[in-house]
């Protein structure tokens, strides 16, 4: 008896802590199933963006359909859905997981379980996925697969006795992974003849085809020419193209997709807002009665101001943000103005990495030169009149007399660290106003620390500080856990006695003096000397808490005449002038754009 089409499908994802080899294993699987020839093979096939390749991270979910000839003589269809590993992109992970029945959990044979391993496993368990542990990098001299197996069994409670011991890099035992996927990951279920229900798990904007909707068919089928309806937004479209994912390309399919399959469709959709991720697609002529449970909307947690370095590029920045938003529902922005920086946007991001990625994409892909203000979280400001404001820009904080109290967002953090560094990490968390919840030993030499921390304290440089204090051995993951009342103040920075709105920060009372001093010191280094002395002050209200002075310029002379070579003189002066162009006028002081960002890195 031959197997039905559904019985031969395996939908799975790979989850792992960053650097444990997720993309490498995906590449190897793609290569071994013959989807790509060795020549076509480019490292990290699923990481399309240059940024993903360079940073070795995955930002967007990607999917690929593979055909695997198993040892039982059958050909199986594998839909491999790649997921990002970083905490900022957890919402992307959960979208991908909802499209799968199983997850391959990679654990590094030398490093063992890390914070993101746990976070990802919990997510996968929430989605009822079959989890299949794989131990990678066994070719490393420091590999200790037996210890790692024990960890998996003790900490996660998964049976790791059959876990393949592989090297994704060399391809060693990757075949075992493929065989196990066939055996362990259950085939999808779902009635092919029922009304269509497809879960949208991602979308991509293509200038020719319109929105390309990535979906997992849960019930029924979808074909070219069908009229579909988005159950949440109510929008209706006629399907133009249906297909599956090759590696890095779309493969149209005349037969369409049936329940259990993963693929895409296009329908000349111009507006991404019409195809929200998490929505259910159904047949407009034979609609399903109930939509699938969607996803939690990913809400921005970190905000910052983005300004074009050249004021004339404001329109370009707006257009670029709109284009990025087409493929990134989590990015939000609205126009704002700053006295120091002019016209720009207040943008919301999922986290600091997300913010960096967007900035880099704007600079690289859209060729924009940006000035960024320090990131901040959303504070809840309870006013004396009973109104509550959600504050995303420190400059807009009402007068203190109008404020009853303020709340700030908190996170639950898990930090896994070698036991030798527990003290250092506890010091760090203490400095960052953390509440200690508990500690557990993974084994004699490794510890999990549980902390509650203000999000405000981890968005700047917490991760860097954690890495440097643990020589890179700590791993870290967090999730938002609500708001808490806190003694917060607005720290203003005055340059030559004028407040620079773009430098204002909301900080905890206890750290205001320290932060103020560091910012003043940093600005002293960043702002060039002028013909007059420039005081730099940090103040809370009218009270100055730190002060530095930039002394007046002493010498800037080209003494020599260079014969009659005036062009050379001119070039030197032009270069000097060029440096000035990138500066912002604050009163009579010229402030380099870098200064606005220098407050980001106060720990250096």
């Amino acid at each position, binding site marked *: 008896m031959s197997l039905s089409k559904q019985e031969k499908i395996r939908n799975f994802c790979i989850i792992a802590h960053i650097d444990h080899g997720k993309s490498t294993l995906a590449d190897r699987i793609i290569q071994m199933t013959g989807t790509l020839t060795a020549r076509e093979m480019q490292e990290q096939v699923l990481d399309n963006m240059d940024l993903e390749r360079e940073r070795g991270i995955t930002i967007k979910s990607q999917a690929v359909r593979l055909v695997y000839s198993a040892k039982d003589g059958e050909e199986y269809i594998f839909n491999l859905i790649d997921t990002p590993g970083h905490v900022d992109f957890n919402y992307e992970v959960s979208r991908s997981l909802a499209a799968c029945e199983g997850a391959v959990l990679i654990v590094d044979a030398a490093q063992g379980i890390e914070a993101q391993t746990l976070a990802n496993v919990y997510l996968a368990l929430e989605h009822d996925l079959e989890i299949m542990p794989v131990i990678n990098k066994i070719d490393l001299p420091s590999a200790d697969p037996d210890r790692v197996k024990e960890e998996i069994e003790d900490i996660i409670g998964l049976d790791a006795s059959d876990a393949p011991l592989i090297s994704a890099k060399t391809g060693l035992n990757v075949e075992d992974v493929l065989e196990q996927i066939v055996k362990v990951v259950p085939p999808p279920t779902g009635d092919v003849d029922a009304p269509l229900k497809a879960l949208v798990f991602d979308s991509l904007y293509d200038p020719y085809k319109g929105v390309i909707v990535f979906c997992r068919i849960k019930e029924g089928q979808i074909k070219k020419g069908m009229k579909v309806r988005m159950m949440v937004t109510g929008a209706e479209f006629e399907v133009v193209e249906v297909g599956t994912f090759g590696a890095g390309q779309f493969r149209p399919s005349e037969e369409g997709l049936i329940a259990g399959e993963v693929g895409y469709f296009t329908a000349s959709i111009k507006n991404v807002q019409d195809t929200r991720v998490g929505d259910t697609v159904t047949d407009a002529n034979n609609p399903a009665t109930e939509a699938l449970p969607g996803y939690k909307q990913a809400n921005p947690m970190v905000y910052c101001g983005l300004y074009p370095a050249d004021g004339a590029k404001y329109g370009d920045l707006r257009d670029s943000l709109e284009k990025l938003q087409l493929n990134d529902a989590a990015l939000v922005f609205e126009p704002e103005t700053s006295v120091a920086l002019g016209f720009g946007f207040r943008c919301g991001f999922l986290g600091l990495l997300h913010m960096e990625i967007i900035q880099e994409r704007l600079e690289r892909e859209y060729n924009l030169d940006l000035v960024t203000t320090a990131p901040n979280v959303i504070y809840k400001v309870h006013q004396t009149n009973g109104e509550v404001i959600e504050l995303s820009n420190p400059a807009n904080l009402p007068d203190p007399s109008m404020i009853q109290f303020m709340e700030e967002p908190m996170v639950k953090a898990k930090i896994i660290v070698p036991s030798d560094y527990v003290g250092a990490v506890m010091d760090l968390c203490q400095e960052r106003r953390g509440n200690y919840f508990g500690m557990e030993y993974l084994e004699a030499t490794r510890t999990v620390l549980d902390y509650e921390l203000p999000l405000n304290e981890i968005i700047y440089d917490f991760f860097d500080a954690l890495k440097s204090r643990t020589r890179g051995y700590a791993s870290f993951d967090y999730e938002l856990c609500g708001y808490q009342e806190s003694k917060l103040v607005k720290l203003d920075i005055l340059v030559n006695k004028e407040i620079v709105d773009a430098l204002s920060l909301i900080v905890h009372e206890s750290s205001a003096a320290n932060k103020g001093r560091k910012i003043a010191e940093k600005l002293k280094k960043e702002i060039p000397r002028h013909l007059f002395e420039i005081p730099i002050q940090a103040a809370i209200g009218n009270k100055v808490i730190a002060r530095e002075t930039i002394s007046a310029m002493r*010498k*800037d002379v080209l*003494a*020599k005449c260079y*014969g*009659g*070579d005036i*062009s050379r003189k001119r070039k030197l*002066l032009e270069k000097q002038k060029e440096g000035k162009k990138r500066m912002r006028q604050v009163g*009579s002081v010229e402030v380099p754009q870098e200064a606005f960002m220098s407050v980001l890195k106060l720990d250096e």
Partner: protein
Amino acid sequence: MQIGLYFHIPFCASKCYYCDFLSFPKQKEQERYMEALIQEIEKTSESLPLETSVKSIFIGGGTPTVLPPFLLDRLMKAIVTHFKLEPSCEWTIEANPGTIERDKIEVLRKYPITRISLGLQSTHNDLLKSIGRLHRFEDWEESIRLIKAYTSWQINTDLMFALPNQSFEAFKETLETIVKYDLEHLSVYALIIEEGTTFGDLYEEGKIKEVPEELDRKMYHYAQTYLKEQGYTQYEISNWAKEGYECKHNLVYWQCEPYIGLGLGAHSLYDGKRFYNEENLEKYIKAAGDLKKLRHDEEILTPKMMMEEYIFLGLRLLSGIDEIAFEEKFGQSIWDAYPYQLNKWIKQGALVHDKKRIYLSHYGLDVCNEIFSSFL
């Protein structure tokens, strides 16, 4: 029309550690080079309108006086043969101590040379050695003695400050020693460490340091005060003269008057254009005076560029810019052209506006690049 002429002699006995001029110790090429230069002189004179006359000549380098007397003679002869010199023409030749002997003086005396510029830099032999100079202070004294004994040339000497390991006292002593010779003109330059020089390399390697700004300015301010007491007037950022002995040739540069540079890599401003000559010695010699092959990167100055240069060069002079002259030259008031910059710098005390002139203040002289660049 009156123009200035510059002749470049790229040869030196050796390269000083701070020097980034186009010069090298290549004795063998001297004769071929001078032939090519004389060809360029002929072609240049043919290319100029008949009514052109010369108001200033500067023979610089390198060290022109490293040339043997017969080559010096050929050059001088070619100049007086092919150009029409104004009776008041200032004619300067650069020299270094130890390269100007009796025989050379006799050759030069045949021509209407009016001025000699002697490189000294410091009166301290240890400092001279440390900056790569071949001569000693005593050689300079001997050159001055010879010049004063056999010619009536005006004399300039170049001095440097802010040298590595130069103390304030050493610089002060240099000034005090030099004023005793009662020279007409003094150029006093701060050291600039340039890339591609010996000092540039040593700086990269961390083997020499720039002197602290405080010391640099202390030396400069001392020179300003002391030389004034001694009867010298500072008329430019780095130049002092006894009354009536300002260098006319340098004024040509600073007042944007036309000049033609001849020889390797020499720069010109002529007919509203800037251009410069071939910088490769072999290519220069092969071009045999063909102006089309020699002249590179011709740049036509726009009115905007001319105004900018008029300002950043004019402000180098302590007398600064005459508002009326500016308006006559450009048909626009300087106040309409640069209101923002002028008001800003006057308010900040770097520029002075007085009796229809605009000039750098005492402090403005210290930070002039900041001022100049703002006008571009």
